């Protein structure tokens, strides 16, 4: 019984990890697209508004990922007594 719950929790955690990572990819892509548009349209208010919105969501998603699954960027490392960068699996290492 306990074993089953633990399996289910691991399964859910894996799905969340995947979902958040996909979200980060999608937000990062949209952010880059907005940046490219703004390079040639620096005074477009709608584009600036979109950029600000997406940037906020992107940073949020990266921080959530870092909190639950480990840092994605070296600058996400917040631990004081251990270098978490090497302690957590790399994002492409999907544990089974």
């Amino acid at each position, binding site marked *: 019984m306990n074993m089953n719950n633990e399996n289910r929790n691991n399964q859910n955690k894996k799905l969340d990890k995947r979902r958040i990572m996909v*979200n980060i*990819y*999608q*937000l990062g*892509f*949209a952010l880059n*697209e*907005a940046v490219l*548009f703004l390079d*040639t*349209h*620096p*005074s*477009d208010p*709608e*584009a600036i508004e*979109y950029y600000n919105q997406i940037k906020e969501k992107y940073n949020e998603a990266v921080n959530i990922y870092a909190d639950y699954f480990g840092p994605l960027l070296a600058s996400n490392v917040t631990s004081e007594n251990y270098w978490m960068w090497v302690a957590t699996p790399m994002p492409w290492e999907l544990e089974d």
Partner: protein
Amino acid sequence: MECNKQMDVMVMVPGMCYVPWQRWAGLYNLDVAILKGTLFEVLDKPFLGGCR
């Protein structure tokens, strides 16, 4: 920076390329954009091997 100049195709100089000014419109949803490779519907030009 913004260019709103309208130009008749007949007065355009031959041998020059023209790129129409893009407008902020027709955005794909996030999940679609990354799969299409562009955020903008108007720039979604899949390679069709010369066929339309």
